[in-house]
C-alpha cells in the first residue's frame, strides 16, 4: 500500500517537472527570444543547480540551440536559438526578477526560484525591464515590470494578449491591470521596450 502511495507521489512529481531526477534545486525556467518565447511560457519546473544548468535542461527538453563561449572572465552564453549575441545585444538571465552580479554558472539556485533567460539590448540605463503577470481574483491580471535590480514598478501601457486579441490595462495605484469579462484562453502581457511576460493558462 505504501508502495502504491509512493508511486502516486512519483507520478505527480513527474507530471510537473521537466527533468525531475537531475541534481540541484527544483526551479522554474522560461526562455524569451528576440521575437517570441523560445521555451516555457508558463514556467515549467526543472532541476538545476545554476541558471546555466537550467538553460541547458530547457534546451534539452525543448530541443533548441544554446551555445556557451569561454573567455578570460568565465563562461557565458553567446547564443540561444537563432540569434547570436552581437554588439550591445545578447543573452542574459534573471533569478526571481533580478540580475545577479555574477555569471550563470556561479549562482546557486534554491527551490522555487524562477529563472528567466532573455534577449536584451543594453542601453545607458542597463537592460530592458522584464514583465511579470499575476492573476488575482479569478479573471483580473496585474502586470508589473522589474529593472535589473529587481525593483518593481507598474508596467504602464502594457497590453494583455488573449484569444487572438489585445486588451489594454488600466493604470492607477494598483499598477497596470485588467479584468477580463468572461472565460478565456491563456494570457500574457507585452509592453514596448520590455521583455514579454510569463503566460498564465
Amino acid at each position: 500500500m505504501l508502495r502504491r502511495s509512493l508511486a502516486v507521489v512519483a507520478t505527480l512529481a513527474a507530471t510537473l517537472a521537466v527533468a525531475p531526477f537531475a541534481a540541484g534545486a527544483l526551479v522554474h525556467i522560461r526562455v524569451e527570444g528576440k521575437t517570441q518565447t523560445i521555451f516555457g511560457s508558463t514556467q515549467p519546473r526543472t532541476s538545476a543547480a545554476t541558471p546555466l544548468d537550467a538553460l541547458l535542461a530547457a534546451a534539452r527538453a525543448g530541443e533548441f540551440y544554446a551555445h556557451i563561449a569561454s573567455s578570460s572572465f568565465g563562461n557565458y552564453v553567446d547564443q540561444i536559438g537563432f540569434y547570436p549575441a552581437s554588439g550591445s545585444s545578447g543573452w542574459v538571465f534573471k533569478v526571481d526578477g533580478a540580475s545577479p552580479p555574477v555569471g550563470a554558472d556561479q549562482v546557486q539556485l534554491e527551490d522555487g526560484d524562477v529563472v528567466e533567460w532573455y534577449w536584451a539590448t543594453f542601453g545607458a540605463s542597463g537592460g530592458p525591464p522584464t514583465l511579470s503577470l499575476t492573476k488575482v481574483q479569478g479573471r483580473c491580471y496585474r502586470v508589473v515590470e522589474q529593472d535589473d535590480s529587481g525593483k518593481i514598478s507598474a508596467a504602464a501601457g502594457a497590453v494583455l494578449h488573449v484569444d487572438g486579441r489585445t486588451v489594454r490595462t488600466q493604470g492607477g495605484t494598483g499598477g497596470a491591470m485588467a479584468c477580463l469579462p468572461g472565460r478565456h484562453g491563456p494570457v500574457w502581457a507585452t509592453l514596448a521596450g520590455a521583455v514579454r511576460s510569463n503566460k498564465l493558462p
Partner: protein
Amino acid sequence: MIRRALVCAAAVAALAGCGGGGTHGRATLWVTRDEGAKVLLVRSVPAGETAMQALDRSAAISTRYGGRFVQSIDGLSGSISSRHDWFFYVNGIEADRGAAAYRLRDGDVEWWDYRDWGRFGQSVPVVVGAFPEPFLHGYDGKVRPAVVVGEDTPVVQKIARLVHGRLVGSGIDPLPSGANVLVVARSRAARFYARRQGSAVWFMFFGDPRRLLEPSFYRYRYRVS
C-alpha cells in the same frame, strides 16, 4: 464548518443534495491575511447571494475595474508597493471568476486572503485550509468523486468517510480520471499540501493519519509542511 460538514456526511451520505449544494442554506465567509496566519473575520452568510454580496454585507469593501475586483477589505488595500492583494478562494480552490460572478452554494466556504503576491507567475491554485473542502462541496456546485489512497485502517476509513471518498485499499490502476484524490501516507514528519491535477485536485498527506481528523492542524492554512 467542520461540524456542518460532519452533519452533512452523516445525514445524507446517500443523497447527492449535500454535495451538490444549492442556492438555499448557508455558506461561510472567511477573511484572513498572510496565507491564513491571521484570521480577521469568520461569518455565516446566506447561500444564493454572490460572493461579492456576501462580502459586502459583512465588511467594508472598495472595488475597482467595474466592480469586478476587490481592492480593499476593512481598510486593508492591495498595492504594488507592498506586493499585496486580496486573493479569493472557494472551498480551497482559487476562484476562476470574480466574486461578483460566483453565486454561493449551500456549504461553500468563501475565503479572502490578503497576502504577498509571491513569486511571479506562480499561483496557488488550491490550498488545504478549508479541508475537507473541496471534497464535499466542490466548486460552483460541481462535486467530483473522491478517492482516498491509503492503508485500510479504521482511521483512514474514517477519513474516507469524512471526504465522502472511496478508499482504495487493494489498489486500482490507474486512478479514476476526474476524481479528487487524497493520498494518506505514513511518515514521521507531518506534511499536508494540495495540487491541481487537471481539473481535479490532489491532496497529499504524510504523517500520522489521525492529524487529518484535527482541524487545528490545517485550518486556514495554505499548506502544512
